[in-house]
């Protein structure tokens, strides 16, 4: 009964989404206020029904209703309740429903917080979001229905992939999707602007907070995925340039470019068509990512097991959305040129450099991800492009970006006098060069060009980003302090610095050692002694495991005990590694069990990971910076009342504000 309610709710949601898509757009065109207002109500209704459907699916999991095919495939009687909930989005159909749910939630948020926007514009935004909802709901109902029944119902299910039975991975998709899907708002804002033909600085001001929030969640989602891969997959890596990882990273890169481009458009009304293009691209990359992951077109341990039919559906949808947007763009963009300029040394130039380098980076990731496929089409030969290429290629635009980051922050709009600017940068430069040498050499005992560049870059960014904060703290009483916007910028950039130092140090100084160990034996890695005290078996709720107790000592002094496990999940019978990690801000000590060898010994992978936590800390700080930036005064409601006046009052009929 409940699954049928869920299915029916989805169908109702679809009908409401169709209303939501069509009526406001028509209404905006005709200036019909009643029709435009339907958008908000339809969005609210759609959200309610999608929420009902989501609740029904969740209930089916919690209640172990194996007559639902999706539940039967991905759950099990002995699955702990919390994972029964996260299993809802653990595979294709359910994660699609999650996507739909989050899209509906974003739409309601836009409907709720758009009172400061002109009615026609808001209606168009909601209409576009409705169109997107229609596409996804159709996709779900036609090809990927989570409520399909399995008759006769089995007594027990196929269990959730053990890799997914983990708290980190449980929240990774929701966070990631809030980001991915959130770019649809910027996209909708772009389409709405192109339909009406008006795009000005206010448009940029409206778009910015929505984009920043989406970007924040995407940052957190990606970081969580990286952290999870590190501790769960057992090989101690944090980024593999896997196609699915790239699928989430590309929207992030373009999203970052978009945030910066919006700053220019808001401040000076420049780069309008470019910002539009970025907004279209960011969401298109989100859709492309969805396609890549669910179509079966690429090889990845992340990819959902699915089939080409679904792939064709998403591809068609992607084509319609992107081609439609770009046709609008080709039509409207030429008229958007503005006629103000800026000097070569100015904030605008640096932001332009930021955009160019980020777009280059994104293009490279795209090339690396899709080239194996394209080359196979073109020549029939199969090649692999992996970390050896990506790591090198990605650094080419990134190193200049990181250096320019420190400089651009202090450049003024329109034109910047060289001398005071260079003066500001003197101290960070000196700090950077000193620390660039000191950190690797005296912190870790080795030095190389890349190390100096990496450490200097991190120090450079941090020192440069701290300057506005320090100036604000030291300001004269009564003068204006740093704005939230500027504070957010500094903090986000600090996060970047944290990331750079973490990535540099762990890549250069991480130590990995695979050895055979028996109970009673010890090994020395990176100056620490790892002693296997015992090896025994433990029982979990739905798995059996062999657990090793390993004591770590530093020069005889006790550091920690870690308990790596080799688990076998009872239903899927796959073997999983649970690493034993001793975490720390200065280093992680990581131990994972490999294979059982003869005579009671096991192969053990031991890793020393200095500063690895700075990588994820950096992402957290970046997200925090974004949060602070959007809490700035000018995005709050009081400022919005002024925006209600439409851009061109002759174009739309509007009730007096």
């Amino acid at each position, binding site marked *: 009964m409940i699954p049928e309610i869920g299915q029916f709710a989805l169908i109702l949601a679809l009908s409401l989404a169709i209303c939501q898509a069509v009526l406001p757009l028509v209404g905006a065109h005709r200036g019909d206020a009643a029709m435009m207002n339907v958008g908000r109500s339809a969005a609210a209704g759609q959200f309610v029904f999608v929420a009902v459907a989501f609740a029904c699916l969740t209930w089916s999991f919690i209640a172990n209703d194996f007559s639902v095919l999706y539940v039967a495939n991905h759950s099990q009687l002995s699955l702990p309740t919390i994972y029964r909930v996260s299993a809802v989005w653990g595979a294709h159909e359910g994660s699609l429903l999650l996507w739909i749910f989050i899209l509906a939630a974003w739409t309601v948020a836009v409907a709720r917080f758009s009172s400061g926007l002109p009615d026609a514009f808001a209606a168009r935004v909601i209409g576009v979001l409705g169109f997107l909802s229609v596409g996804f709901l159709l996709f779900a109902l036609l090809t990927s229905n989570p409520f399909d029944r399995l008759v006769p119902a089995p007594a027990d299910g196929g269990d959730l992939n053990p890799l997914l039975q983990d708290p980190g991975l449980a929240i990774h998709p929701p966070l990631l999707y809030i980001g991915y899907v959130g770019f649809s708002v910027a996209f909708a804002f772009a389409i709405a602007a192109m339909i009406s033909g008006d795009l000005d600085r206010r448009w940029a001001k409206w778009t910015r907070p929505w984009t920043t929030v989406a970007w924040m969640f995407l940052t957190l989602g990606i970081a969580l995925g990286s952290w999870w891969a590190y501790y769960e997959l057992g*090989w101690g890596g944090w980024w*593999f340039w*896997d*196609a699915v990882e790239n699928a989430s990273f590309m929207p992030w890169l373009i999203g970052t470019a978009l945030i910066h481009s919006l*700053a220019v458009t808001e*401040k*000076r009304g*420049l780069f309008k068509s470019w910002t539009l293009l970025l907004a279209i691209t960011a969401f298109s990359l989100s859709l492309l990512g969805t396609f890549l992951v669910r179509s079966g077109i690429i*090889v*990845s*341990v992340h990819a959902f097991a699915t089939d080409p039919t679904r792939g064709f559906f998403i591809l068609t949808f992607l084509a319609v959305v992107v081609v439609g947007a770009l046709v609008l763009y080709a039509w409207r963009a030429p008229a958007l040129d503005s*006629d*103000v*300029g*800026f*000097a*070569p040394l100015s904030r*605008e*130039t640096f932001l332009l*450099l930021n955009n*160019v*380098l980020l*777009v*280059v980076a994104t*293009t*490279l990731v795209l*090339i690396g991800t899709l080239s194996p496929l394209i*080359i196979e089409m*073109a*020549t029939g*030969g*199969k*090649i*692999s*492009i*992996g*970390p*050896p*290429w990506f790591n*090198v*290629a990605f650094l*080419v*635009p990134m190193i*200049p970006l990181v250096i320019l980051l420190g400089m651009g922050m202090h450049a003024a709009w329109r034109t910047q006098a060289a001398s005071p600017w260079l003066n500001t940068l003197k101290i960070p430069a000196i700090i950077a060069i000193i620390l660039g040498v000191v950190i690797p050499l005296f912190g870790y005992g080795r030095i190389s060009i890349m190390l100096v560049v990496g450490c200097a870059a991190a120090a450079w960014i941090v020192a440069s980003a701290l300057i506005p904060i320090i100036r604000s703290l030291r300001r004269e009483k009564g003068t204006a302090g740093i*704005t939230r*916007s*500027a504070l957010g910028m500094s903090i986000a950039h600090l996060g970047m610095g944290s990331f750079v130092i973490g990535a540099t140090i762990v890549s250069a100084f991480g130590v990995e050692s695979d050895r055979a160990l028996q109970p009673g034996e010890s090994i020395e890695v990176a100056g620490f002694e790892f002693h296997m005290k015992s090896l025994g*078996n433990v029982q979990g709720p739905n798995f*059996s495991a*062999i657990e090793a107790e390993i004591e770590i000592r530093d020069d005889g002094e006790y550091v920690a005990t870690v308990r790596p496990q*080799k688990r*076998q999940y009872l239903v899927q*019978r796959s*073997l999983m590694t649970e690493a034993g990690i001793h975490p720390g801000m200065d280093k992680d000590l990581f131990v994972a069990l*490999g*294979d*059982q*060898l*003869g005579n009671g010994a096991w*192969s053990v992978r031991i890793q020393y990971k200095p500063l690895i936590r700075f990588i994820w800390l950096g992402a957290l700080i970046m997200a925090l910076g974004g949060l602070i930036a959007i809490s700035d005064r000018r995005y709050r409601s009081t400022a919005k009342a002024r925006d209600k006046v439409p851009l061109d009052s002759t174009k739309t009929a509007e009730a007096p504000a």
Partner: protein
Amino acid sequence: MRKFVVFIAAVLLTSPLFAIDQEKRFDDPELQTRYEQLISEVRCLQCQNQSIKDSNVSLAADLRREIARMIEEGQTDEQIAEFLVARYGEFALYRPRTSGKTLFLWVAPFLLVLLGGFALFRVLKHRMSLPIDDDTTNEGRAE
């Protein structure tokens, strides 16, 4: 107890029956580094996108053993790559070798940066020629 026995049996039956030492180690640190570098760049063909360094499946173990043997025999990285490619194709290497069809991969980063620089230059030139003042009534914020 019974569950444990079943578990151990399952482990033994699903793992490679002739489990060998996990890693070949060279006493010479240079050779060891070379070995680790090589195995991190060879694809595990039985897996879904992992290197043979990170994978535990039997083919990965076999390939690691072969590579260690070849290093010991004094073969160069080139020869080892050729060995793998002759048997599994270019797909086996994560670092695409520079050939006609992959040359553009290694040139692409620099080419793109150059293109970007060129585009940037043109935009700057255009903007430099325009009047810088505009009638903003906005607050003079730095961001």
